[in-house]
């Protein structure tokens, strides 16, 4: 190192540089560079050894994870079976196509191309574009399922030009009875982002994999899911599959065996016809729910393909709320169907059933007169006649004697206001009013007219069709029958006797007379020799007389028609309830009960009756739904509204609407109900009913009523 300016003066002599100095400098410096180069070589060798030996394991793993792609094979979903093992929900092998939004290069062009290849409807294409534009990267968007092999093949050869398009063989959920089981079974759909966050299972974001979204599909998700298979494949960096390495088969989800009788469910759903309502049938020897039909409904098959904007708009705009499960979430004033139950309460309170009350068409309590539905009066009425003629005055009079509390207790004992241990996503439990309840909820004293209203199933009283069916079973058997929905649960409540045998006999006979005797539902008689059905009609008023007479006028102001029943009357086997929303009276309900029971005992005869009716209605429920959809889509197809982003929004909305609908009758709870004429072909002709007169002045309606309901 000869740095000039660091040197001291005197010793400094200008150095003569000659060739030999340069040569030796060259050799020294050459050696230095050579050494540096050697050092770099050693460094490289060490680095190489470090990577290849010390970190070999780490990098070999990374190389494997590069090379090997583990694809989950979605497990086949477990079947949902009816009590006889017939599938209510099964799987169908098909070809399907999904989009991975993240991998799309030109989303719109790709979707248009797909629409062309698969001949999709414009509305569907618009739906897909909408979904892709809002989907999160990892969420696959279904384009189409149930494709034919030709379409699938045509698409497969064009895949290189369509990045992000994933065609595959798979299974799609299939509901053979379609809309008949819509509310009961629910449907399936791709997991939403929220569901994936809650359960970060890679299976949930596997293209084509669907989870239960509603009803039993959602409730039994764990059992139905199964174990995914796995396919290990070697892939290139571009994602092309080079070869299969190994495959593990999936394990299908466990089947769920329901107590539902599939054909009966389908029959009842179709028999509801053009009405909006529900039919519940139970086996009163086991508590098995044989049928929980709620119509109108949606087609779970098309919901499982992803809800289309047009279809959703049609369902949402329908005032008959096809998205609501009316069996569990419809709450109605039970009307006169409570009378057998109230009779039980009277007998428990010590009233002799043979004691008579004179009905002159009304009862004076204090300074008020409460009318019977039969303004001309029933004359002398005992308990049996009170039931089969549905005489209101008998119940007014006896209820004044025993008070509200025993009646409310009996209502609860019969299942009203109760929640049942069923595997359903949500059930409303309605209201059984009593003085304490009214004070707590409304801060007002219990009035005489409250008892009067309650004894005829009006006022604040609300119950669901399921509760009415349970009430029918408990009245029929005298036992505390608990409903059950799956075959693997134990029948419950049969060890608990609710009513003494003689009281049960008495009520059975009276209820039989409703149908088979001089009662209010003569036309409900079963067309089967030797099998007598017992029942009780109910007509529930929803608005005050000043708004509607309940029979005609706007649909939503018409009376609900109700009917509870069991058969055979002397040795009850089946029991149930039919509720027809705004059917205009019990006359809309009991013919349905009659046909459903006929089908149970004699399917051929039942189907014959249905075929005649369906010819007049324009096809089965499913056919009518499809026709309506076609008409609706043709009319509105141009302006497709967006379906909700999340299924949860649908349910929240349906739930909110159901709660609001349940509060409708409360508006008239604070006034005396003038009972509507019961359908009574053997008695008064409907038109002959006297004009309503002395309806008490409508009290101020509760400001913001809300039914006492729960999930």
């Amino acid at each position, binding site marked *: *190192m*000869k*740095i*000039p300016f660091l040197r001291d003066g005197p010793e400094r002599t200008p150095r*003569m*540089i*000659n*060739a*030999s*100095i*340069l*040569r030796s*400098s*060259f*050799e020294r*410096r*050459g050696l230095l*560079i*050579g050494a540096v*180069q*050697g050092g*770099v*070589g050693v*460094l*490289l*060798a060490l*680095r*190489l*050894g470090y*990577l*290849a*030996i010390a*970190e*070999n394991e*780490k*990098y*070999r793993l*990374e*190389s494997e994870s*590069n*090379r090997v792609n583990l694809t989950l094979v979605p497990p086949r979903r477990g079947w949902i079976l009816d009590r006889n093992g017939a599938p209510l929900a099964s799987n169908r092998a098909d070809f399907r196509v999904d989009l991975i939004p993240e991998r799309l290069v030109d989303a719109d062009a790709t979707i248009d191309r797909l629409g062309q290849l698969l001949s999709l409807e414009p509305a569907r294409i618009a739906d897909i574009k909408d979904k892709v534009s809002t989907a999160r990267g990892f969420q696959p968007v279904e384009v189409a399922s149930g494709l034919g092999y030709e379409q699938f093949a045509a698409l497969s050869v064009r895949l290189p030009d369509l990045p992000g398009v994933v065609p595959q063989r798979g299974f799609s959920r299939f509901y053979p009875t379609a809309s008949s089981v819509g509310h009961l079974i629910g449907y399936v759909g791709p997991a939403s982002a929220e569901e994936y966050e809650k359960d970060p299972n890679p299976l949930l974001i596997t293209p084509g994999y669907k989870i239960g979204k509603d009803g039993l599909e959602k409730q039994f998700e764990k059992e139905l899911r199964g174990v995914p298979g796995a396919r290990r494949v*070697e*892939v*290139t*960096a*571009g994602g092309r599959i*080079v070869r299969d390495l190994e495959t593990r088969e999936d394990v299908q989800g466990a089947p769920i065996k329901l107590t539902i009788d599939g054909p009966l469910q389908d029959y009842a759903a179709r028999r509801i016809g053009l009405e909006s309502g529900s039919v519940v049938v139970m086996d009163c020897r086991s508590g098995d729910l044989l049928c929980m039909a709620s119509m109108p409904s949606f087609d779970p098959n098309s919901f499982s393909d992803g809800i289309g904007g047009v279809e959703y708009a049609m369902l949402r705009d329908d005032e008959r709320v096809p998205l609501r499960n009316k069996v569990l979430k419809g709450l109605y004033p039970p009307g006169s169907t409570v009378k057998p139950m109230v009779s039980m309460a009277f007998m428990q309170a010590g009233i002799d059933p043979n004691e008579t009350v004179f009905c002159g068409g009304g009862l004076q309590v204090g300074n008020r007169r409460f009318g019977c539905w039969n303004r001309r009066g029933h004359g002398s009425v005992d308990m049996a006649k009170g039931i089969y003629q549905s005489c209101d005055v008998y119940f007014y009079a006896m209820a004044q004697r025993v008070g509200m509390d025993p009646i409310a207790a009996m209502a609860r004992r019969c299942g009203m206001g109760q929640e049942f241990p069923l595997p359903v996503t949500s059930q409303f439990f309605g209201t059984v009013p009593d003085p304490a309840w009214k004070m707590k909820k409304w801060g007002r004293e219990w009035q005489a007219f409250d008892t009067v209203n309650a004894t005829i199933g009006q006022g604040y009283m609300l119950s669901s069709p399921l509760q009415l069916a349970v009430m029918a079973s408990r009245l029929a058997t005298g036992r505390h029958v608990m409903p059950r929905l799956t075959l693997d649960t134990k029948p419950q409540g049969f060890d608990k006797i609710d009513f003494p045998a003689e009281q049960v006999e008495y009520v059975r006979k009276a209820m039989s007379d409703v149908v088979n005797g001089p009662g209010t539902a003569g036309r409900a008689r079963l067309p089967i020799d030797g099998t007598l059905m017992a029942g009780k009609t109910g007509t529930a008023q929803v608005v005050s007389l000043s708004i509607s007479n309940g029979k005609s006028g706007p649909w939503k102001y018409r009376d609900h028609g109700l009917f509870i029943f069991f058969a055979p009357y002397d040795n009850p086997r089946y029991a149930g309830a039919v509720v027809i929303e705004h059917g205009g009276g019990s006359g809309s309900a009991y013919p349905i009960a009659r046909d459903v029971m006929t089908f149970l005992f004699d399917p051929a005869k039942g189907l014959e009756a249905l075929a005649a009716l369906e010819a007049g209605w324009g096809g089965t429920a499913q056919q009518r739904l499809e026709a309506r959809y076609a008409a609706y889509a043709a009319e509105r197809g141009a302006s497709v509204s967006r379906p909700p982003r999340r299924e949860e929004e649908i349910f929240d909305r349906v739930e909110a609407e159901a709660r609001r609908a349940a509060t409708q009758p409360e508006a008239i709870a604070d006034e005396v109900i003038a009972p509507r004429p019961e359908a009574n072909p053997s008695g008064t002709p409907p038109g002959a009913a006297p004009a309503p007169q002395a309806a008490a002045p409508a009290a101020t309606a509760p400001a913001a009523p809300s039914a006492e309901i729960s999930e």
Partner: protein
Amino acid sequence: MNTIAARGIVPEPIARQPWEMLIPLLLITGFGGLVLYSAGGGSMQPFAMSHFIRFLVFSVMAAIIASMPRDAVRVLTYPAYLAVLVMLLGVEIVGQVGGGSQRWLEAGPIRIQPSEIMKPAVVLAMARFYETLPAGMIGSWRSLVPSGMLIVLPISLVLLQPDLGTSVAIAFGGVVVMFLAGLPLWWFLLAGGTGIAAMPLIYFFALRPYQQARVTTFLDPENDPLGAGYHIAQSKIAIGSGGLFGKGFNNGTQSHLNYLPEPHTDFVFASMAEEWGLVGGLFVLTMYALILRWGWKVANESQDRFCALLAAGATATIFFYIAINLLMVMGMAPAKGIPLPWMSHGGSSMMTNMICIGLLMMVNRWNRMAPRRGLTV
């Protein structure tokens, strides 16, 4: 010096060839061809065949260079340098006219990248310059400024292309010649110190965003595993997963399934290491070491300053390729398009390296013809 010649069996024209370099060179080229055969999906096309053909063509070229007489080289050095400089200028002009940047000139089917030829050309010109510079002037400004211009002119043109890697390669060859020419050591220390101090400034003001990205990725590769860091990460996976003996010929998954980018050019070493493991890697390093050692031997045996500087400069140029490429594939230098001599697929680097080999063989031949003349110049 030649053990084979001593046996007297082999004819003299063959025996006098520098086999201690040629054998490693043939082995490394052959091995490179094997790796390219695998990278081509187990076939001679498209890489391996053209690799061999190019090697043959450029071998002939190297032989022609090797047979050039000393005087002719001395006369032709500056004109050759100027010609290449004009070609570089031509690239700029064509690029300006054609719009967009480009790095090559086209003459019929041949595509010439003048910046590649400039590497040996600069070494030649520098060696020639210091040969003619009187010894007494070493250490004065006249030993630095003209030679500095020789480096700065082509570098400026190459930087305009823009091609940072080649610029650095040209500078490296030139600076090594300067260093060996005996310029005062403290100049280099000063320049190095200034360079280090200026690095932040260069990073923020001179580099383009993609070049900055390369540097940041090099400093923190985990930061961007799927972006710019992807190449180096995949290269390290390829090398590391090879282990001691590799996955076997034609069994590399990283290269065959396209995880490794450019498995036949920049990352050919990773391709090789994946299939041949540490053993293959050490073999390649050894071959390069033998070739470079021979280069230094030629330089040390040179009779005059021109030959010594030329041989050392050519060796340094080859070394630069090897070192930067290998440091890069092992994740120790920023990713830059510098191919690996005699292994990577590509004509330009093959040509540059074969010119360097040709120049070394030429000097070697001169050395043999006239043994070193002691201390005279």
